[in-house]
Each structure stands twice: as structure tokens, then as C-alpha cells.
């Protein structure tokens, strides 16, 4: 009997990928947005169905072209991929739904079909990384999503995006190449590209130098793509000068997909086989995570550009995710993964609010938003909610991550107390940099107080508030992300000896 739901993982990738060229060719031009949004929404529905299936305990391994696993390409979905699929497709759908007016101002009409095609390719690439169980296949999807992202970032009218995207391109290529070198070495030693097969076969050659070198290349390459401190240099300007709706999409998911891959590769292949790998993993990542959290928050504290401030905050938040993961414990991983979800919500809301501001205010220096709350109360209201979530105020999604992260840290003894101090200090720094914006927007008199700004377009505003309310909903009823994360953490921890 053919069970159609078995095909969901492949549909998740293939639909946006096939729709991309169609969108590029569509006439009339204005139809492109509609097609891309519909495709993206459909992808979101598939992700929801996959998640329901994962909850029901369905096994989603899928052999492409019916070639059996180690020889053909295998797809597989578990709780970890499911939560990331939800983030990626959800962010894409919401950003596209919200962003029509904003994108119309940012991107020339002629180029729009290509822009939406690139968007769908990026979506397909990221989904592909998430459903694939084959190391080389993942590399291909990684390149698809990366190339498409470069196009997205560069497609705005702002010429400052070009040097930013060039840096992004160079760094991204180095990261991908490192990853490719790593899997090449592993293929050399084991003769397989299938992750599950690799886990079994690598055991026999685990003490050989090439495997250790491969582990180094893969970890660093993926850390570069995930903007783990100090390899984050490409991120701030990319986020700052990309069209804001693109920033919403990228900030919510692009680095998280790389983090996902880093964790999955490390825990599935290296943790069970390399001697003392869990300790090395902690020793390598924990200091970097702590530095990311403290230094990036401090930079955000002094940043004068609103978008760049939020970008540095993202670097710090990636540090939180890494901190949770680097504890190599069940609660720690749960905290890290649940923070992927919650940070996507919080940062998505903040960047959507920025997109609302962008429809009325040309630049993003902090002084440009002074008094914005007078004329755009709904926009700034959503910004406040997103900001509270980022700080981790109870009742918002961000608080759930903080709760798990602090619980996980307290389980680590003396180091844990120091980590709690780091988390607390950086939360307070987040409070300071978010509140700075709130004070400027609410209490300063507008620069040009004679001009009354109009509130952002209703569709964009509705999407922003959907995201803002999701922050509150998942702060009070977090069972969905928490159960997915803890089941993902269990899967990962099963591979740790």
C-alpha cells in the first residue's frame, strides 16, 4: 500500500524547488509574489503535517528512487528536523505574506520574479539540508540555499549591500569548502556518505588522523556558516543592508540551519566514535559561546544603527544556542534547541517591526526612530513585545529558553554558576539595548514633529502582530517547541556514549 504521507519529506524540498523556475517565468510580473507566497504557505502546511506525523511516531526515512539506503540518497525526518522545518517554512511564509509592500519599495519591479525565485530556492535549499540524511546531498543543498541567499541580500536598492554580500559570499564559500573537504576525507576513509552508515563505519578508523582533520574542517566550516563567534564577521552588515523582509527570513532561520547541521553531524557521527569528543566539544564551544554572548551583547549596546544592533544581538543569541549545546546534557540541548525556536520568534518579530518602520522611515540610525511611537503605536507595541521576549521577561517565549538554559547550567556545578552569571549579565545587557530603543521611540520628540507619519500598511502590521502574539502564546503554552526540542535532544544524546 502506498502511504502518501511517506512522501512528505521529499515534497517539502521538491515543491519550492520546482516552483522557483515557474515563478521566474510567470507573466504578468505581479503574479510572482502570489505564486511564491502560495508555495511557501504550502511548504508550511507540509511542515505542520510532518510535525504531526513526528508526534504520532511515524518513521519518515525515504529512499530516493527506491535505491536502498547506503547506496542511494536517503531522506529522514525526526523531531529535530521537524522543529527546524517549522521555523524555516513558517518564517518564510510569514515574511512573504507580510512583505509585499515592503518588497515593492525595496526591489525593482522587473527583478521581482527572479527575486521570488531565489527566495524559493533558498527555502528549498534550507529544507533540503533539514530533511537530508546524506552528507554530500546536504552540501549541495547548502550551496543552493547559500547562493540564493546572496542574491536575496544583494537584490535591494542599497549599494552598501554589495560589499556586505561579497564578504558573505567569501566567508560562506570558505565554510562550505571546509565542509566539503571534511566529508571528502571521511569518504576517503569510510567509503560512505550516508550519515547513519558513516556513524557505524567510522568507528573502525576513528583513531586515524584524517578523521580528526575532517572533524576539524567540518566543525569550523559549519561554525563559519552559523556565525559562531569569532566567525560572525559576515553577519552584521549582511543583515543591516539586506532588504528588511529578507533580513526577517535570514535572521529567523539561516544560521539556525547551519547550527542544526553542526549539531546533527557532530552528535551523530563524531560523538559516539571519537575518544573524549564530548569534552573537546565542550571545551571548544563553551568559551566561544560565552564570548559571543558577552562581546556581541556589549557591541549591540553601543551600536547606533537599529538593524545592526539587532544583528549583533543575533550573534549573542547564537551564543546562547551554542552554550546550551556545549553542555552536552539533555537539558542543555533542549535549552539550545528550544532557543532556536524562541529566538526565531523574537527576532522575527523585531525585524518585522523594523520592516514596519522602514515603510515610513528611510534610515535606521537610532536617532531616526525618535518619537516614532507617537505616530506608529502598533508598530512600536510589537517591537516592545519582541524586545521583552528577547530579554526573557516571563510570559514571553524568550523566558522559556532562559528557564531551561539556567536550569541546565545549574546542573553543572561550579562552572554552572559562572554560566548563570553570564546568562544573567547578558540578559541585562539585552534589557539595556532594547530599552534604549524604546526610550528613544517613546520619549524623544520626533525630529520633524510637524510631519505625521502614517502607521505601517495593515497587512504588514497584522503579520508583525501575529509574530508578537506568537511570542506570548509560546511563552504561556510552550508545549509544542518544548516537546519537540526535548525529543530532539533525546535523539542527539542517544549517540553520546
Amino acid at each position, binding site marked *: 500500500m502506498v502511504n502518501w504521507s511517506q512522501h512528505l519529506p521529499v515534497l517539502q524540498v521538491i515543491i519550492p524547488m520546482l516552483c522557483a523556475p515557474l515563478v521566474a517565468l510567470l507573466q504578468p510580473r505581479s503574479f510572482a509574489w502570489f505564486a511564491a507566497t502560495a508555495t511557501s504557505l504550502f511548504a508550511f502546511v507540509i511542515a505542520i503535517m510532518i510535525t504531526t506525523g513526528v508526534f504520532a511516531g511515524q518513521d519518515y526515512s525515504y529512499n530516493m528512487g527506491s535505491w536502498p539506503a547506503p547506496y542511494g540518497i536517503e531522506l529522514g525526518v525526526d523531531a529535530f528536523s521537524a522543529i527546524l522545518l517549522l521555523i524555516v517554512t513558517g518564517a518564510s511564509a510569514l515574511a512573504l505574506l507580510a512583505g509585499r509592500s515592503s518588497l515593492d519599495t525595496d526591489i525593482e519591479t522587473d527583478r521581482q520574479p527572479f527575486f521570488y525565485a531565489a527566495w524559493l530556492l533558498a527555502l528549498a535549499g534550507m529544507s533540503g539540508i533539514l530533511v537530508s540524511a546524506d552528507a554530500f546531498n546536504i552540501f549541495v543543498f547548502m550551496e543552493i540555499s547559500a547562493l540564493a541567499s546572496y542574491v536575496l541580500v544583494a537584490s535591494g536598492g542599497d549599494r552598501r549591500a554589495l560589499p556586505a554580500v561579497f564578504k558573505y559570499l567569501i566567508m560562506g564559500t570558505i565554510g562550505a569548502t571546509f565542509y566539503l573537504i571534511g566529508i571528502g576525507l571521511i569518504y576517503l576513509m569510510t567509503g560512505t556518505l550516508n550519515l547513519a552508515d558513516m556513524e557505524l563505519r567510522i568507528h573502525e578508523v576513528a583513531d586515524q588522523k584524517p578523521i580528526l582533520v575532517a572533524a576539524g574542517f567540518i566543525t569550523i566550516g559549519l561554525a563559519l556558516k552559523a556565525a559562531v563567534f569569532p566567525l560572525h564577521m559576515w553577519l552584521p552588515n549582511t543583515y543591516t543592508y539586506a532588504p528588511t523582509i529578507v533580513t526577517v527570513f535570514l535572521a529567523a532561520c539561516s544560521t539556525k540551519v547551519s547550527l542544526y547541521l553542526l549539531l546533527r553531524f557532530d552528535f551523530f557521527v563524531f560523538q559516539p566514535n571519537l575518544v573524549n569528543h564530548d569534552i573537546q566539544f565542550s571545551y571548544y564551544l563553551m568559551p566561544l559561546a560565552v564570548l559571543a554572548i558577552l562581546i556581541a551583547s556589549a557591541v549591540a549596546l553601543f551600536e547606533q544603527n537599529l538593524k545592526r544592533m539587532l544583528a549583533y544581538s543575533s550573534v549573542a543569541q547564537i551564543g546562547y544556542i551554542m552554550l546550551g549545546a556545549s553542555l552536552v546534557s539533555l537539558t542543555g540541548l533542549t535549552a539550545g534547541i528550544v532557543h532556536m525556536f524562541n529566538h526565531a520568534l523574537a527576532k522575527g518579530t523585531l525585524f518585522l517591526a523594523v520592516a514596519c518602520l522602514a515603510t515610513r522611515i528611510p534610515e535606521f540610525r537610532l536617532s531616526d526612530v525618535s518619537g516614532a511611537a507617537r505616530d506608529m503605536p502598533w508598530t512600536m507595541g510589537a517591537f516592545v513585545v519582541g524586545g521583552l521576549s528577547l530579554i526573557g521577561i516571563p510570559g514571553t517565549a524568550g523566558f522559556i529558553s532562559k528557564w531551561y538554559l539556567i536550569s541546565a547550567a*545549574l546542573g553543572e556545578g561550579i562552572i554552572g554558576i559562572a554560566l548563570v552569571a553570564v546568562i*544573567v549579565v547578558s540578559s541585562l545587557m539585552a*534589557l539595556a539595548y532594547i530599552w534604549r530603543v524604546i526610550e528613544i521611540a517613546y520619549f524623544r520628540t520626533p525630529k520633524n514633529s510637524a510631519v505625521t507619519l502614517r502607521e505601517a500598511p495593515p497587512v504588514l502590521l497584522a503579520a508583525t502582530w501575529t509574530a508578537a502574539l506568537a511570542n506570548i502564546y509560546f511563552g504561556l503554552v510552550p508545549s509544542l517547541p518544548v516537546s519537540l526540542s526535548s525529543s530532539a535532544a533525546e535523539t542527539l544524546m542517544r549517540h553520546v556514549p
Partner: protein
Amino acid sequence: MNASNAILIAIALPCIGAPCIALVGRISANLREAVTLVTAIALIWIVWGMLPELLAGGRPSSLLAEVVPGIEIAFRVEPLGMLFAMLASGLWLINSIYSIGYMRGNREPDQTRFYFFFAIAIASTIGVAFSANLFTLFLFYELLTLSTYPLVAHKRNAKTMRSARVYLGILLTTSIGLLLPAIIWTYRVAGSGDFTPGGVLQGKLEGPAIGLLLGLFIFGIGKAAIMPVHRWLPAVMVAPTPVSALLHAVAVVKAGVFTITKIIIYIFGIDFLAAEPSGAWLLYIAAFTIIAASVVALRQQNLKRLLAYSTIAQLSYVVMATAILKPLAVMGAATHMVSHAFGKITLFFAVGAIYTASKKTEIHELRGIGRRMPWTMAAFTIGAFSMIGVPPTGGFVSKWYIFAGAIEADNYVAIATIILSTVLNAAYFLPILFLVWFAHDESPTAKEHGEAPFAAVLALTITAGLTLALFFFNGPVLELAAQLVRSSP
């Protein structure tokens, strides 16, 4: 209506009232204030309606949601919370009457926003009062901080913004930095943060760790204004007086000492803490705060700042009384929450009335003002007597119990502190009373004035009456306080 629904309705009511206030505020100011008053009356009806069940020994509870397994948003009414909720809801009504007089009398801007956030703050206060566990309490505690921020920053000028920043900075820093780790630590070691008679930490934690955890809690609860985290309280005196009166003499600060009392009784457990020497420092720091704040109050020239420092001292009375860890003293702590609320709100109302009528804010300007504003200053006198603890005021009753508890415990530090602070209280209030009633106003005042607007005078007369009434008719308050002690054997 059953009681567990009543809890949820009590929290939801002001939350529903708030958007209504915002909506009708555009139409008419009278309608807006009517909505506030109706909501306040309905809230009193709901909250006070639970009293008979509670006095009969019932403990209504309600589970709203399970956030993650083991961590719930749940409510449970117990005597201390009931006392606090009754206090907050009852005084909200009186304060709303007063606000109408004050805000109109001073032509304050953005009054709709004022009433809106006031309602949200009251909802958070009720939430704090009825919380069944640490998690829920923390949720509403933070909401209370955030919802009062716009009230403090009401005037929106540079000075107000600085003060509001101090307010938010100190309260959020302490709560995120110290209280949250303490709560998570408690959940980790005890497996639960439910407020349980007798405490949950018995046998789960020992030695200096107890003192450390207590420290995280005490200094994490910045709202209790224990020194050295008291700096926000004088700063927020820039807010309109109704805010200072209800929030910074009753709701916010009482939420602080209420939380401390609740944590000591229901998380640590009185007996557990009494047997543990590493927690003993609490009494000394509270005693120090009482004396130090009273000494600072002696030197204040501005009336509201003087009252702020007096509040800091009186809050530490509650903490010290709880830290004596004897049933009588704990009863005293609960009663003092009520008596101080009545007395201090009267004093703030009087100060606001003086400001509304004459724009005077400094003590030396008050010469002979008693003759111009006899009602206001009579109420002020009653409030001041209650602060000192002179019969027949409510302040005497609570001090009596605290004193009795201190003697029962043979705690000479506490006894000496009470005596010394009573002397200091008299030293800073009596000269003002003398100035008000017996000094002659030599320089002609800039503005001829009589009493403040009627609504303001009415409100402060009521609270002054309550201060006196608490001396004579304190049955239900003491009964609730006694139940609090009985339920923690």
C-alpha cells in the same frame, strides 16, 4: 459562582476594564472614570466575596495552564494573599476616587493612559497575591514592574525619564539577576516551587547554601526595598501622587514584602529557617534598614521623599517581623502590611491634596496649613500617628504583635530596633505636626487656598477612618493572620 472561577475573574476583571477604559477614554472623561470605578467595585465584590470561604478554612485554587511539566500557572488563595488582595482591591477604589480629584485638579495630561496602566498594575497585583507557586508569582511580579513603568514616567520629561530608568533598571536587574536564579534553583533542589505550608526545602538543602539562597531571594525582590536595593523608591516619587500612594505605598512595595513573607513561610518554612544559623543575617539587615532609612528620613525637606524613606523603614518592619520567625511576630507582619497601607496611603493622599490646593511640596512651607486645610491635615495627623504606633490607630495593633513576638523570641536586637525606630518616627513626624497646627504662617502665601477638590478630600477621609477603624474592628484581619500562622505548624 464557585471560588476557583472567582480567582480567574478577579485577575481578568481589571484586564478587561483596561481596554474599555482606553476605548471610552476617547469619548468622554466622565465615562472613562465611571468604567474605572465600576471595575474597581466589581473587583471588590469578587475578591471580598471569597473571604467567608477562606475564614471557614477553605483554600480555593485554580490551575490555568501547565507551561511545561511540573511548572504551572496556578492560583491558590491563602490567608496572606487574601489579605493582600483585599487591601489592593479596596484601596484601588478609594484611590480611583482620589485620582479623579487629583488628576483633574492638576490638569495632568494623558489621563486615559494613566487609568489604563493603573488597571493593568492592579491585575498584576491580584495575580501576585493569589499565585500558587514561585513561577506564577514571578510572572506577575515582572508584569507589575513593567505596567507601572509608564505610570512612573507619566510626565515624560528628562527628570522623570531618569527616575523611571532607575526604577526599571533596579527592579529588573535584581529580579532577573537574583530572583530568577533563586527560583530556578528552588525548582531544581525541591522539585517544586509550590507554596506549601511548612516549606518545600526541608531536607533538600543544608548549610550555608540556605543563607545564600535566602540572600538571592531577599535582594532579588527589589520591590521590598531592603537596603542597598532601596534607591528606586525615592526616585519614583516623581510620579503623580495617586501612583505614589497606591503603588509605591501599597501595591508594588507590598508585593515585595508579601513575596518575601510568602517565601519565608511557604518555601523555607519558619521552623526550618529558625534552625539554620546561616539565614540569621536577614533580621540584622532588616533592622539596619529600619534605622538607616529613619535617620535619612529625618533629614528630608521634601514631603514625598520623607514619606518614601519612611516607607522603606516600614517595609523592613514587615521583613524583620517575619525574620523573627515566631507566630506572634508573623501575625504582626501580616497586620502591619494592612495598617501601614492604610496609614501611608492617607499620608500620600494628604501630600497630594496639599500640592493640588497650594502647589506646596516642602516641609517648611507648611506653617499653619492646618487652619486652611483642616480635613486634610487631620487625616495627615492620623496617618502620622499610625506610623509612630500611637493608639488608637492601626499602627499600634501591628506594632504590638511584632513587639510581643520579639519578646517571645527574646530577640533584643528586634526589641531595641522597634524602640529606637519609634523614637525616630516621632522625631520626624511630630515637628511637622507642630508646624502644621501651631506655627503661624508669617509670610503671606502666594495663593489663597482652601481644601483640595472634594473627591480627594473624601478619599483621604475614608482612609484616615480606616486607619482608626483598624484599631477597633480588626477581627477579620487578625483572624486571617492567625490562620496564616496556624497553617504553618
